[in-house]
């Protein structure tokens, strides 16, 4: 394992410290935590419901990179691939509550759900109005009574963008939570890996793939997917993922939003080639794409791979996705 780090146990605090130092006009660190909160001038001036997200580290720019005017009010970073602790989340909640309440955006992992729940209980004890929504866009895992449910992956950033825009526009907490749930229910993602990520504390890739193999349906923590296959041309990969995702939408009218997401070690060049194939096939299928974005948004350390997210989007959502924000990573 070759990584540009110092001590393994210092990775997260040093990363957050670097992020904050390099972007002090946008964000500041909450003392004693690895949580960051908005530091722009508008933050203090304009009242809105606070929007807080967070989760294990290793998915950068998610979540700290999305703190800013029009997106998150604060983000909490846990250890690598490990949910942050409730006290840190609680500090973030307190730092952003302006009396209008706080919405928590949680990815559906048992650790995250439990830690955010505990933080919520702590905030409730302070009489802070608080709600949470749980993102579970990864359709490669079946949603059945026998599993934790579907995982939250790249679609999270689209949820954060829409909720951030709605919160900025003055939407109240209950409506935000309802909107968030609707957005989540309309958002579907599948990812593929060419090479697994190496967790620094582990020191080797989470799984091995042959020189010509890819895995469909992987998660963002080296969770295995639903099948290992020979690598195909980008066009075929795009076709496979589109087929899988679009089968989840019975109604193909109206607009869709598309996110092509790099997993960390896949260059933009490949992401754009894949985007070209995705957008060509959707156009051929007469699916109207109202918004599209390509880049490393929700990564998995140094995983080589890509994910495709498609959202059936109201016209309003498309507008909200397109609104300018002042964040590091959007």
């Amino acid at each position, binding site marked *: 394992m070759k990584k540009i780090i110092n001590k393994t146990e210092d990775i997260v605090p040093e990363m957050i410290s670097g992020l904050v130092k390099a972007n002090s006009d946008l964000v500041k660190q909450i003392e004693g935590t690895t949580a960051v909160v908005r530091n722009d001038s508008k933050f203090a001036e304009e009242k809105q419901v606070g929007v807080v997200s967070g989760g*294990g580290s290793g998915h950068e720019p998610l979540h700290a990179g999305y703190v800013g005017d029009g997106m998150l009010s604060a983000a909490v970073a*846990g*250890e*690598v*691939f*490990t*949910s*942050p*602790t*409730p*006290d840190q989340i609680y500090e973030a909640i307190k730092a952003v509550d302006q009396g209008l309440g706080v919405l928590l955006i949680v990815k559906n*992992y*048992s*650790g995250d759900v*439990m*830690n955010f*729940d*505990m933080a919520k209980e702590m905030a409730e004890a302070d009489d802070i109005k608080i709600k949470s929504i749980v993102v579970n866009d990864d359709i490669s*895992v*079946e949603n059945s*009574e*026998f*599993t*934790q449910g579907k*995982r939250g992956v790249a679609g999270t950033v689209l949820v954060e963008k829409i909720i951030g825009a709605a919160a900025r526009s003055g939407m109240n907490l209950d409506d935000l939570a309802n909107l968030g749930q609707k957005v989540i229910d309309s958002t579907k993602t599948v990812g593929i890996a060419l090479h697994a990520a190496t*967790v620094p*504390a*582990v020191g080797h890739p*989470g799984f091995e793939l042959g020189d010509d193999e890819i895995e469909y349906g992987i*998660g963002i*923590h*080296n*969770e*295995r997917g639903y099948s290992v296959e020979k690598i195909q041309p980008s066009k075929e990969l795009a076709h496979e993922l589109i087929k899988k995702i679009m089968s989840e939408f019975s109604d193909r009218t109206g607009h869709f939003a598309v996110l092509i997401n790099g997993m960390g070690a896949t260059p933009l060049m490949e992401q754009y080639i894949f985007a070209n194939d995705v957008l060509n096939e959707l156009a051929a299928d007469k699916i109207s794409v109202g918004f599209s974005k390509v880049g490393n948004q929700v990564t998995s350390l140094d995983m080589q791979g890509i994910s495709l997210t498609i959202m059936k989007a109201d016209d309003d959502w498309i507008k909200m996705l397109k609104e300018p924000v002042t964040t590091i990573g959007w």
Partner: protein
Amino acid sequence: MELNLADTKKWIELFVEKVEANTSELNELDTAIGDGDHGSNMARGMAAVTDALAKKEPADLAELYKTVAFAMIQKVGGAPGPLYGTAFLDMSKKAKETTDLAELVQVGSDGLKRRGQSDVGMKTMIDVWQPVAESLKSNDLSKSVVENALNSTKDMVATKGRASYLEEKSKGHLDPGSQSSAYLFEALLEVLGE
């Protein structure tokens, strides 16, 4: 059965030792069906527990359990932080009413179920806590009770936690959280002198 403050502290210290001695074993178990960090997560918690106990000697059982709970909640994160944290926090509250060990462990197990929205048979640490709580009630906790409980998770299909994403493929592996909980109760048995 009761456990006084000194013995309970010894229990926790032995638990810390066992987890620290087996950190990579726990990581390995979690690599098979999770994300490979259960040992690291627990070790971070154990260091925090040690620190907290060194900083302030707990005055009573309730304070001791609370110290353990807070250290784990504040330093572990992931699944085990809230799980162990809630178990010990609920035990701390209960310790204000009773010092009966069986009752305390049952309250801890109930805390796990509440926090994890889970129950026995889902291939989680509850599959160790619940049988242990029951054998404490009938006063026949033994090494083999803990071992059997742990081993019972091997052939289960996980339906909670990260391992559940593997569905059928989660079979054939011990549950990492059950292994760390087995260390907890093996430590207890050592304190009880068995």
